[in-house]
């Protein structure tokens, strides 16, 4: 087994690692109790998984074909930057559209700031509020 083979193996194992993380985080998406906690799974584990995978691919191509893929690097950077932002945006949107925190949640410092005592539901979130009513 020469060096390049070893490197390839490393790459492939990274990919496998990414795959496993991905499945686990997908499980997280199923298991975790509310959208906020699920977004943790998405923004962190899924991002790690894709980073591992892309890095693996990058390394593989580098080693196998001597090909330095700028596109992969860009992809990695891109995912790295955007995944947390996406998580942030979805969570904010969820909260602002009044998706409730899971039962058994602790303190919520945002609620009084954002909604105060008002009880009206904004117009556009009708389909969400319907669902909420069902749940409650």
């Amino acid at each position: 087994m020469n060096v390049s083979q070893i490197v390839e193996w490393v790459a492939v194992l990274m990919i496998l690692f990414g795959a496993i993380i991905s499945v686990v985080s997908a499980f997280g998406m199923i298991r975790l109790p509310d959208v906020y906690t699920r977004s943790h799974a998405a923004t962190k584990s899924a991002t790690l998984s894709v980073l591992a995978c892309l890095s693996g691919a990058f390394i593989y191509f580098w080693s196998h074909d001597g090909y330095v893929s700028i596109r992969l690097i860009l992809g990695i950077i891109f995912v790295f930057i955007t995944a947390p932002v996406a998580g942030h945006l979805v969570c904010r949107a969820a909260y602002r559209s009044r998706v409730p925190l899971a039962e058994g949640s602790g303190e919520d410092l945002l609620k009084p700031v954002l909604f105060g005592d008002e009880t009206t539901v904004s117009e556009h979130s009708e389909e969400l509020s319907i669902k909420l009513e069902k749940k409650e």
Partner: protein
Amino acid sequence: MIEKILLISLVLFMIAIALLLYRVIVGPSMPDRAIGLDTIGVNLVSSIAIVSILLNTKAFLEAILILGILAFIGTIAFSKYIERGVIVERKSNR
């Protein structure tokens, strides 16, 4: 062997996507579905990377980047829709 592992990884990613699909279908809230789709997109990114290795081609590396971009744009769009009902505003309220 390497190919096998890659194939296994692909299968794992597909399983992950299937699980996420469940989230997309079941919800229960819109943000749940949005995250689900976003994550499916991200998993597809990985899958494309693996297929590229399997097919030994660099033809799909753009697709990886683009998919990443689109997943991001899509998530922004969804969250804006969920949050404000519109995804493009005429004039920001800021």
